[in-house]
C-alpha cells in the first residue's frame, strides 16, 4: 500500500519549482497514472509529493509556422488526441495517443508525466523522437532544452537533475514530402507494445531519401534511435530491399528483453517486420505529401 507523505500543492510554476528545490526526498505527481501504481507496490515512497496537476500555465497546445508545435507538460493525452491542430499537422501523434491505454487514463494522464516516467515501452517517446522533438525542462536555477532522444538515460531514468520539471515538448514544423508512421505489436489494442517502431521519411525533389529516423520502442532500456538505418537510407532511392535491410539492422542491433509475452527471438523478428512496414508506410505518405 502507499506509504505516507507530505502533500505539496503549489498554485503556480514559480512556487512549484521553489518547493521542489527545497525538499530533497520529493517526487512530482501530475496525472499519476503510472506513478501511483509503483507507489502502491511500495517501489516508490517519497517523503514529499509535489502535485503539479493543476498548474494551468503548463497546459496548452500552440503552433506557428516557424517554431512549430509547443505542448505544455500538464496537457492531457486526450487533449492531444482530440486537438484538431495536431490531427491536421501531426496525425501520427494523434493516432498514437488514441491507442494509449484507456480513455479514462488519457483523460487524466499527461504527456509530461508519461515522458518523466520514462518507461521504455511508453508510446509517445518513439513517435516524438521520430518527429525530431525536443524537450524543455526547468528548475529554480533556470531552463534548458535538449533533443528528446538525449532525455532518456536508462530504465525509468531521465537526464533531469533534482529540482527540474518538464515544462514543454517542442516539435519542429512538419517538413514537406515527409511521412511519419508508428505501430506497436500487442495482443489487445490499447496495451503497451511488446515492441513498437516509429519511422519518418523525408524525400528530396527527385524522390531520394533526404532524411529518415527509425525509433524502436520497448527494445532496450530507452527508446532506440537506429542511427545505422539513417546512414543506410539517406541519399538513396528507397525500395523494398532497403527496407528489408533496415529491418535486419533493427532486429540485430536492438536489445529486447524476453518476458512471458514474447521471447527475445520473437521480439527481434517483430522489430524487423515492423521496421520494414513502417518505413514503407512513411515512404508512401512522403510520396503523396
Amino acid at each position: 500500500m502507499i506509504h505516507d507523505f507530505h502533500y505539496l500543492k503549489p498554485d503556480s510554476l514559480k512556487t512549484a519549482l521553489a518547493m521542489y528545490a527545497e525538499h530533497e526526498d520529493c517526487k512530482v505527481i501530475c496525472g499519476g497514472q503510472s506513478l501511483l501504481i509503483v507507489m502502491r507496490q511500495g517501489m516508490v515512497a517519497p517523503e514529499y509529493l509535489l502535485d503539479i496537476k493543476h498548474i494551468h500555465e503548463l497546459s496548452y497546445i500552440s503552433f506557428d509556422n516557424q517554431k512549430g508545435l509547443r505542448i505544455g507538460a500538464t496537457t492531457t493525452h486526450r487533449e492531444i488526441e482530440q486537438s484538431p491542430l495536431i490531427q491536421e499537422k501531426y496525425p501520427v501523434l494523434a493516432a498514437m495517443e488514441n491507442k494509449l491505454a484507456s480513455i479514462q487514463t488519457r483523460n487524466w494522464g499527461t504527456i509530461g508525466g508519461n515522458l518523466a516516467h520514462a518507461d521504455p515501452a511508453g508510446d509517445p517517446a518513439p513517435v516524438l523522437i521520430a518527429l525530431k522533438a525536443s524537450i524543455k525542462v526547468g528548475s529554480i536555477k533556470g531552463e534548458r532544452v535538449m533533443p528528446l532522444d538525449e532525455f532518456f538515460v536508462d530504465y525509468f531514468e531521465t537526464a533531469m537533475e533534482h529540482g527540474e520539471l518538464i515544462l514543454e515538448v517542442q516539435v519542429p514544423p512538419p517538413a514537406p514530402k515527409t511521412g511519419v508512421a508508428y505501430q506497436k505489436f500487442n495482443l489487445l489494442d490499447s496495451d503497451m507494445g511488446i515492441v513498437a517502431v516509429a519511422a519518418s521519411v523525408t524525400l528530396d525533389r527527385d524522390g531520394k531519401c533526404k532524411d529518415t529516423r527509425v525509433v524502436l520502442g520497448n527494445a532496450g532500456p530507452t527508446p532506440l534511435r537506429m542511427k545505422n538505418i539513417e546512414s543506410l537510407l539517406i541519399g538513396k532511392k528507397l525500395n523494398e530491399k532497403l527496407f528489408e535491410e533496415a529491418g535486419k539492422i533493427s532486429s540485430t542491433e536492438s536489445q529486447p528483453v524476453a518476458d512471458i509475452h514474447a521471447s527475445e527471438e520473437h521480439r527481434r523478428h517483430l522489430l524487423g517486420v515492423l521496421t520494414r512496414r513502417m518505413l514503407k508506410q512513411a515512404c508512401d505518405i512522403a510520396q503523396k505529401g
Partner: protein
Amino acid sequence: MSTNKYKVINTRVHNIDGIAKVTGRATYTFDVKLPGMLYGKILRSPHPHAKILKIDTSKALELPGVKAVVTGKDTLGIKQGIWRRYEELCDEQILPLEKVRYIGEPVAAVAAVTEEIAEKALDLIDVEYEVLPAVFEPLDAIKKDAPVIHEGVERNINVTRHIEWGDVDDAFAEAEKDGYIREDWFKCGGQHHACMETRAAVSSYTPDGKLTVWTSTQSPYYHQALLAGVLGLREGDVRVIAPYVGGGFGGKFELDAAQFCSAVLSMKLCKPVKIVFTREEDMIASKRRTPMYYYVRTAVKKDGTFLARESRMFSNGGAYTGMGATALYLSGFFHSFPYKWRGYRYDGYRVYTNTMPSTSMRGFGAPQAVFCSEQQIEWICKDLGLDPFEVRRKNAHTEGYEVPGQAFIQSCGMKECIDKIEQWVKSKGKLPANRAIGVSSCGFMSGGIFNWFDTPYSFSSAVVTINYDGTVELHVGCQDIGQGSNTTMAIICAETLGVRVEDVKVHSGDTDHCPADLGAWGSRQTLMAGNAVKMAAEDAKRQLLEFAYAEMGMNIVYDLDIKDRWVHIVARPERGMPYFDLVKKALRGKDGQRIIGRGYYTPHRKGMISPAYSYMMQAVDAEVDPETGKITIHEIMTAHDCGQPINPLGLVGQLEGAASMALGYGYLEDMPFEDGKLMNPNLVDYKIIRATEMPETGMIEIDTYEPEGPYGAKEAGEGLTNPTAAALGNALFHALGIQMKELPITPERVLKALREKDEAKKQKKNT
C-alpha cells in the same frame, strides 16, 4: 423464432435485478459493513512445497490494532473437499497443519481494526519452513522418483476415470485393414475465472453459537454445508447470505480461504471479520480451469464413417482435488460428443502437482476435449479429401440416441445446426488471403445427476406464496451469479401461474429463507430449478382454481386456466374473472391463510450424467498476419439448440459472454508458471478480451422441445464456451494450413507452426 404461444416465456423481459444494478444500489460482499467489523488478511506460503515447522505469531499480536492471529492449530484440522461422497478426495485443510503444497496457500490469518494494520501484521509473523522438492507438470509428477505431494498417494495419481463402450480393438483392427487411423498429442492450458468481483466473505459468529456469512457464492447451500463440516457446527446454525454476486463461472462453489479464515477468526473473537481478496490473491490462490494433456487416436472408414476413438488424458490437478474428479469424467464424456462411435475408450488421470489447484470452469473439460476432437476431425477430413460438414452430419447424434451405458439423448438439433452453419459459411463466399472460417460442433449437459456432494435434499426446490393483493413470493435455492436465474425463474413462475413478471418477487441467496438447492453449476438451473418452480406454481394454481370452479359454477366439462391475470374457461377465454379478485376470495375461503405451492426436482432414470443435452455448431471468421502471428477475429456465428428459450435477453447475453471467455481461452489468456509461481497475477499481463477485440456475434436459434425441461427448455450457459477454441484452430488450419496442438494459440506458436509446415513441405519435396 416460432410465433410465441407463451405470454411471458421468450419475451424480452427486463432483468428483475436490473434497477438495482444500473442505479449503483446493488451491494456485493465487499460493500457489506457491520458495526465493530474487523478486517482480515491472509499470510500465504512463498514455497510450492514445504513442511511447516513453527509459526511464531507473538510479534504480530503485539502490533496495536491486531485482535487475533489464527493458524492451522486454531482449526479442527478437518480435511474438506466438495466431493463429500469420497473420503479420500476431501484432502484440503485450508489452513494446513503439517505442510504447504502450492505457492500462495494460506498459512495464517490476521484480524485487525483496519486492513492496513492487518497487512502490516503479516510481515511480523515468522514461519519456519523446511522446503521440500516440488514438481509442477503432471508428466513429471507420475515418475517414480517424483516427490510425494499427498502421503499414501502413489505416483501422485489421485483419481482415475475410465469410460468404454463398444468393441474398440476390433474397430481399430478393421481401420488398420482398410480404414484410416490418426493420432495426435495436444496440450490445453489453464484459464482463470477472473470474475470482476474477487473472492470475499464477511463472517459474524455470535454468542448464541450461530454463524452468519455474507459471501460471493454460486451455491449458498454448498457453503452452508461445507462451513458446518469444517467448523464443527450444525448446518442449521450456519446462515449463508449471497448479496449480489459478481460472477462465478465455476470458481465460487468450493470453500475458499476468505470464507474459512474469516469464519475461524470470527469464531475466535465473536466479532464480524471481513476478508476481501486482492486481484493478485484471487489469481494466485484460488482454483483455475484444469490444464490437460490429451492423446487422441481415432479410426474412421475411408468414407468418413467414424469407427472408434481411444483417448487418454493427464490433467494438472494442482495441490488439492476440488472438482478434479468431475473434470476428468466430463472431459472424457464430452470428448465423444456429439458423434456416434462404434467403440470409444477413454482413460483420464488426475495428477497432483505443486501448483494452484484446478477445478471447474465454464465448459468444465469440454473446451479442452472439443479443441482436440474437432480439430483432429477437420485434419482427418483433409487427409481423406472428405467434406467436413458431410462427415459431421453422417456421424452426428440424433434424437432418441443412447450413448451406450452413459446417457439418453432426447431432443437433439445437431443436424439442423450443421445445415444452418453450412449455409451461413457458404453465404460468406470467398474470403481474402490469410483469413478463413473454422467450424466446430459440440454438445453440453443441463445439470449433473451424479450426487458427488452427497446431498440428502432434492436437487432443486421452490415455494410459491400468493399474497392477498395477488403479488407472488417465489422462494428458490438457485443462485443468480449474473446469468439471470432470478429472472428466468420469475418468467417460469409468471407464465405457469398466469401473471406478469412484475407480480413476482424472487427470494434467493439466503439459506435461512430459501429452500436447499445445489446452486449454479453445470448449467443446471434453468432445467432443474425451473422444473421445481414450474411444479410449485402449478401446485399454487391448482389450489387457486379450486376456488374458481366453485366461484364460477360452470359446466364440469370445461377446464379453467389463468393467462395474463385473467382466470378463464380454456374453450371460451372471454368468460372468466380477474385473477386479483379470485385471490381475495381464495384467501377468505382458507380462513385467512395464503395459498402456498411447493415444487422440487431430482432427475431419475436419465443415466448418471445429465437429464438433457444442448447441441450447437459454431463458425469463427478469423484472420491472421503470417508475418507477426497476430490473430484478428471478425465474426462468430452460432447455430444453437437449447430447446425452448425462456429468457431471450439472457440467452443472447450467455452466447456473447461465453464467446468472449472462450476466445480468451483460445488465443489471449495464458497462465505461465515458473517453479510453481504464476508469472502474471494481474489484469495487465493476464489478457482478458476487451471491447475493441470482441467480434460481432450472431445466433441462429434451432427450435426443439426437451421433454425433461420446463416448457421444453435446456441449458444455454456453459455449452457455448466449448466450440470456440476449436473453431479458431480450424480457421487457422484453413487460412494457413497450420495444425495448432497447444492452447492458447499465441502469435509465437502461430509462427512456429508456420515454420514447421514450410520445413515439412521442403522435406517432402526433396525426398
